[in-house]
């Protein structure tokens, strides 16, 4: 248990108690929504945890460092950003995966690029974005987000 975990649990408990004093009915609905989110995340959660385990036992540290570590250079950052743009992993579950990559020797820049494109860019949702907001808007937003993700990643790598 570390301080963040304690803080989140205290915050959630306090919010839940406060919510119950405001509206019992809505609070029960909120708990049901949380349960539903958990059930929909569960398969992916199990997969991610298994993948982290496999990453630790199957991928040698040197191999990971060569492709995703400092020595991978801009190539590593770009490939992480591209993989992040294509994959569709819920952000909540991407953090433990990112942490395991860092622990195994991936660079901060690579991990930040992956996390940022993962959430900012949606290949899966692109058709819907085009339909609602137009091709120009959607392509510009996603394209600029890719560049932004690289900038964010480089800044983070330089500062951490």
């Amino acid at each position, binding site marked *: 248990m*570390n301080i*963040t*975990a304690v803080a*989140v*649990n205290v915050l*959630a*408990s306090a*919010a839940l108690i406060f*919510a119950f004093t*405001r509206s019992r009915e*809505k*609070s029960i*609905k*909120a*708990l049901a*929504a*949380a*349960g539903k*989110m*958990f059930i929909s995340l569960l*398969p992916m*959660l199990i*997969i991610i*945890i*298994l*993948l*982290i*385990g*496999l990453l*630790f*036992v*199957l991928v040698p540290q040197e191999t990971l460092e060569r492709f995703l570590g400092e020595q991978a250079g801009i190539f590593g950052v770009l490939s992480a950003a591209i993989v992040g743009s294509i994959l569709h992993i819920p*952000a*909540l579950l991407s*953090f*433990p995966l*990112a*942490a*395991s990559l*860092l622990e195994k020797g991936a660079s901060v820049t690579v991990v*930040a690029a992956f996390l*940022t494109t993962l*959430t*900012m860019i949606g290949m899966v*949702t692109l058709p819907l*974005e085009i*339909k*609602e*907001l137009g091709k*120009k*808007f959607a392509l510009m*937003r996603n394209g*600029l*987000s890719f560049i*932004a993700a690289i*900038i*964010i990643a480089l800044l*983070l790598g330089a*500062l*951490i």
Partner: protein
Amino acid sequence: MMNNNTAGQAAKSKSWLRRWLPVLITGLITLAALQLLPDAKSAFIRTTTSYALEMAVILPAVLILMGLLTVFISRDFIARHLGSDSGVRGMAISFLLGTLPTGPLYMAFPLAGTLKAKGARSANIAIFLSAWACIKLPQELVEARFLGPRFMVLRLVFTVILVVIIGLIIEKAGKKG
């Protein structure tokens, strides 16, 4: 006879299969890998248990926070306040509304589409969408837990700055074209 009910059940079991089949495949690959590398078993168990425990400690609380925000802040509330202001205030409001976890990204697009039709600034629409996509307040706590508060805060600050810049660039390009 295929009535609605059995059709619904068939669809349900099909999507159930689609959700759990990848789990099964990953599980089988894992079992095979551990059969081939018996020495790796203890490291595998140590790593997976530690990550599973960390998730178990933090995930329920985060989901409860998201559930509460989803239920207590209605989509109407967001639609009412979004795009009502221009200038820096409007941008800040679009941004903050986007960070509230009120649903997945595909729900944000129709909302943004309505806004566009109402004549909101395209910078604000882009800021709202990007914030909705990548900044969710309860998620920041999970990021801090797994990647450290410094990583989380720096990434958040840079993301906010760049999201605003992207919004302004899109707006400028839209005016020209």
